[in-house]
């Protein structure tokens, strides 16, 4: 059913439909309306879940880890500094192969203190072993939660997942969202079947000590699991499309890319702006297309390589920066296209919530055509004198 909803509330509704049995979250800044809405939903007995209020994000994810190891479907949500505080637990969750699903409402990291959007928070946990899906709009943000649970809990995967969507731009914006009903959600997402779990009658321990003789093999297996998750993401996304009409089988999505000279690569809500800008650029005779990365982890390098094989240049937009180097997506796209001779130009932009307009996209395409890249776009030079 179509409803006009705030992004956070829409996600809370979708999460309810996924029937998590344990929710643990820290309610204070930085937090969103998602867990506030979920607290209300649980209090109203609309969802049969244990809602654990904790004293920090570290504890929130720790509680989720324990509950997941005990065999429950769990949920949490956080953003920016909150995710930073979860850093250690994130690695543990992935290493213990617990299919925790967490919404990341993307926001910048301090200092300087910022409450606005960029992707630095989730990108900074790139190497933790979590899957990372990025939503373009609130419809996709809600749908990706069902898919994330299904992929994460698949016994071929057993990895945790971030569902990332842009702070304020999506989380606090009202948009029409086509919500599944409970029956539809249940038919897509079966109850969680743990691979193994904490059980007092048959005790096991998780995440034990591994000496140098074993540690590397554990990390290798984690890596293999994340790589091979690609097929499961594709098949779960396809199944979602077959059931509800919105297909998510691609880990990337192309827009007017077929005959494009310049390909823009982007993630998240920025893609909406880019699509509008592309329409205008096309009207003006410029052959520009978009490749949207929906799944940054697993990273679909082969899919990206073939999608970009026909273009003359690639402009990668990153709402994050590895200080001293480049944006995360730029580096990976360049790696995926290594040996192809296609120039890959990186543009770090929109850090800390700076707005990106269609004219900015046009300016970036202009830069790319002139071969000018690997820059921070939109710097206010007057502040840097």
């Amino acid at each position: 059913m179509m409803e006009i909803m705030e992004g956070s509330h829409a996600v809370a509704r979708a999460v309810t439909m996924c029937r998590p049995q344990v929710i643990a979250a820290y309610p204070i800044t930085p937090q969103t309306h998602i867990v506030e809405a979920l607290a209300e939903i649980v209090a109203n007995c609309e969802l049969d879940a244990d809602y654990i209020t904790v004293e920090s994000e570290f504890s929130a994810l720790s509680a989720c880890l324990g509950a997941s190891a005990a065999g429950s479907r769990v949920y949490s949500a956080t953003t920016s500094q909150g995710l930073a505080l979860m850093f250690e637990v994130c690695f543990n969750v992935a290493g213990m192969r617990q299919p925790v699903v967490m919404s990341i409402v993307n926001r910048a990291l301090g200092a300087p203190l910022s409450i606005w959007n960029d992707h630095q928070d989730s990108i900074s946990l790139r190497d933790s072993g979590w899957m990372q899906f990025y939503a373009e709009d609130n419809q996709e943000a809600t749908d990706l939660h069902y898919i994330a649970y299904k992929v994460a809990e698949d016994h071929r995967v057993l990895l945790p997942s971030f569902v990332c969507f842009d702070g304020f731009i999506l989380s606090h914006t009202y948009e029409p969202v086509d919500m599944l009903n409970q029956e539809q959600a249940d038919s897509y997402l079966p109850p969680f079947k743990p691979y193994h779990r904490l059980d007092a009658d048959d005790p096991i321990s998780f995440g034990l000590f591994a000496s140098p003789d074993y540690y590397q093999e554990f990390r290798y297996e984690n890596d293999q699991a994340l790589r091979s998750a690609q097929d499961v993401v594709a098949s779960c996304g396809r199944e979602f499309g077959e059931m509800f009409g919105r297909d998510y089988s691609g880990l990337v999505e192309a827009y007017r890319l077929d005959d494009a000279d310049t390909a823009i690569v982007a993630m998240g809500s920025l893609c909406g702006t880019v699509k509008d800008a592309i329409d205008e650029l096309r009207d003006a005779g410029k052959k520009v297309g978009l490749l949207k990365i929906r799944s940054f982890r697993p990273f679909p390098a082969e899919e990206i390589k073939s999608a970009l094989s026909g273009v003359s240049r690639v402009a990668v937009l990153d709402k994050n920066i590895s200080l001293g180097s480049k944006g995360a997506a730029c580096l990976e796209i360049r790696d995926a296209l290594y040996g192809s001779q296609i120039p890959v130009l990186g543009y770090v932009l929109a850090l800390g919530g700076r707005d990106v307009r269609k004219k900015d996209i046009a300016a970036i395409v202009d830069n790319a055509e002139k071969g000018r890249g690997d820059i921070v776009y939109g710097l206010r030079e007057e502040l840097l004198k």
Partner: protein
Amino acid sequence: MALNLGCTAKPGNARDNKTGSWRVFKPEFIREKCTQCGMCTIVCPEGCISPDEDEFPVPDYDYCKGCGLCAEECPSEAIEMKKEEK
């Protein structure tokens, strides 16, 4: 041994890990000085000291990691740590 997903293990697994191989110094128990007070058995972090049929303490060298706590705590100086050649 194949890896267990999530690095899991059943309880009692520490027994498979023979910490005796870590040892540099080896405790030697001198019966003549020992009063059988039991202190070494209590302080051994490996729990590897148990009494023999005559109630004298004997370490299990498969697990004794040579930490020297027993020797340090023995009130009768009945334990000497000796460099072990391997």
